[in-house]
């Protein structure tokens, strides 16, 4: 904690509530621009629903393409929230404090976005209702609850509901703070949302114990969600490259890799845009980079294991698929890009202390990771379907249409748009956590040096 300096609570309020009390000048033009992109995106989705999936590049045998890849990508990003918030909260890691809210928020908005993609992919999204309600009561036809396509929405809905409630509970003290700093309709809004929060010892105790309990409950959900998403593929024996027993842990660790990297991206943007240099410091990026080196290396091990398991059996279709995935044009260039951007470039950067403490380089390394991780999902999903097989009369490579590419970029704009809207009404950094850090902060003299320290209760 060498970079921490003493900041009083009034200053903390003024700086960290600047998004709500004194909206920055860049906010409105940015939100309007993103809003236009979002509106165009919804219009494009409307066109697709009206015209049908023929406007995409999807065709037999590649029936899962960019939309499902992007769905898996956003579910992966959503794992940032619980990874950071729950694990660091449970382990009482001091550097979690400025990170948790943004990470939880990223979980909620990326899951909301992920849920949209299967709806779009369905072509006629209103028919999704038959997955939830009986198809036809008169004939007693019920949704097949045993189908993996039911597991997925159940798991994601559980994760989304849990994450949203987790976010709200952790917001209560800051809502009380906003109620105390605002007037008029804003005060009325925050008064209702704060539920009468006063900050007595009982409320603080429940906030602490409840946060730990919710973290402990959310962790198994977080592991289950991407495991279940992986089973969308792994329980399909007919497609080589999908039917793998290690997909569940492989997907989970990949999700943590991409999610924590997305938190790095977001923290860099928060530090630059809101000028929170006192709160989001190089030491936080350093800690995240160290964590990411471990996660990325674990993920790389799973990537190789997945390949080794596939080729060890010398099964001809599996070998043909790996040949296509790694050596044939255009998959080979995507594969090389994936390996370099997903691991070699970022981890090579993070091994340098100068990079870990350089916000701009950390930002770009995290962008690299997510380019790589999106490609990883694309390379898992599409080549297995695109490969020439005996009973398929067509095997042309899948070329995503312009509309699909636009909707992919639309999803990035959509998540950013939601984040910025949230930032207008709610703080992105938990104020009470920062203040607690100041309350418990001190310095101790060891020999001839005075070292900043954090005091913590024993239990």
């Amino acid at each position: 904690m060498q970079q921490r300096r003493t900041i009083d609570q009034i200053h903390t309020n003024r700086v960290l509530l600047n998004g709500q009390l004194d909206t920055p000048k860049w906010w409105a033009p940015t939100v309007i621009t993103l809003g236009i992109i979002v509106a165009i995106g919804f219009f494009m989705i409307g066109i697709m629903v009206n015209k049908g999936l023929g406007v995409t590049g999807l065709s037999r045998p590649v029936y899962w393409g960019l939309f499902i890849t992007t769905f898996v990508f956003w579910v992966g990003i959503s794992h940032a929230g619980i990874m950071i918030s729950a694990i660091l909260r449970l382990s009482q890691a001091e550097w979690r404090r400025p990170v948790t809210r943004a990470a939880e928020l990223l979980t909620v908005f990326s899951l909301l976005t992920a849920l949209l993609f299967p709806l779009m992919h369905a072509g006629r999204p209103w028919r999704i209702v038959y997955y939830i309600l009986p198809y036809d009561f008169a004939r007693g036809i019920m949704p097949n609850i045993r189908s993996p396509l039911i597991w997925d929405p159940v798991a994601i809905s559980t994760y989304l509901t849990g994450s949203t409630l987790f976010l709200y509970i952790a917001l209560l003290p800051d809502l009380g703070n906003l109620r105390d700093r605002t007037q008029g309709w804003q005060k009325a809004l925050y008064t209702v949302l704060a539920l009468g929060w006063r900050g007595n010892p009982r409320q603080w105790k429940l906030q602490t114990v409840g946060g730990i309990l919710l973290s402990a409950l959310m962790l198994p959900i977080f592991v289950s969600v991407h495991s279940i998403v992986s089973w969308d593929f792994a329980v399909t024996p007919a497609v080589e490259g999908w039917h793998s027993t290690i997909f569940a842990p492989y997907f989970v660790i990949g999700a943590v890799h991409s999610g924590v990297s997305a938190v790095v991206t977001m923290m860099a943007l928060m530090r630059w845009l809101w000028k929170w240099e006192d709160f989001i410091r190089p030491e936080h990026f350093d800690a995240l980079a160290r964590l990411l080196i471990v996660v990325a290396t674990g993920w790389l091990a799973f990537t190789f294991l997945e390949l080794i398991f596939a080729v060890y059996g010398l099964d001809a279709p599996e070998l043909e698929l790996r040949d296509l995935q790694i050596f044939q044009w255009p998959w080979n260039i995507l594969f090389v890009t994936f390996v370099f951007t997903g691991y070699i470039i970022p981890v090579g950067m993070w091994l340098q202390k100068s990079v870990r403490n350089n916000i701009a380089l950390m930002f770009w390394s995290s962008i690299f990771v997510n380019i790589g991780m999106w490609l990883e999902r694309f390379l898992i999903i599409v080549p297995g379907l695109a490969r020439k097989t005996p009973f398929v009369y067509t095997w042309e490579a899948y070329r995503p249409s312009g509309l699909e590419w636009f909707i992919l970029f639309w999803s990035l704009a959509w998540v950013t748009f939601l984040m910025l809207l949230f930032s207008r009404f709610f703080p992105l950094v938990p104020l009470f956590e920062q203040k607690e850090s100041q309350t418990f902060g001190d310095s101790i003299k060891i020999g001839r040096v005075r070292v900043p320290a954090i005091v913590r209760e024993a239990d």
Partner: protein
Amino acid sequence: MSKSVLGLYDDPNQAADAMDALKEAGFAQGTFDVLTGTPYPEGAFGEHVPQHRLFRYPAFGAIIGFTLALFLTTATSIAYPLVTGGKPILSVFAMLVILYEMSMLSAVISTVVGIVIESRLPNVNPGVYDARITEGMIGVVITTEDDQADSAIAALNGAGAMEIKQA
């Protein structure tokens, strides 16, 4: 007629002294409380350490969720007995995911309900309060009968209150 009195302090030691002074003046535990903008270590102000039953909520929620999920998976499978790959109609492995997720969902929801209830929220009549508490001031608040208000104010002032508010 009861009255709420709040003393504001900028030093935690003074707030702790105010809590002691109220105890010495004969006010019962539970009638006075300390309000802060950030969590302090338990017992920092000599306050009564709050007890709670939060740990019961997730267990109760998980049981409810599991029961509902068991009913849903069993009833829908029996209502439309579709044989898949020669497997039994009530195939436990296929039902496990739904059982697990619904149990966890219900546990999380009941925990959140528990946090709200055990925190005594929503509090529609929060009483006397000062916005400076979320700026670092510490409030010691007491709810007492009108005729004892002066005694409470004296105790709060005696500990060095910067300001006294009443409602």
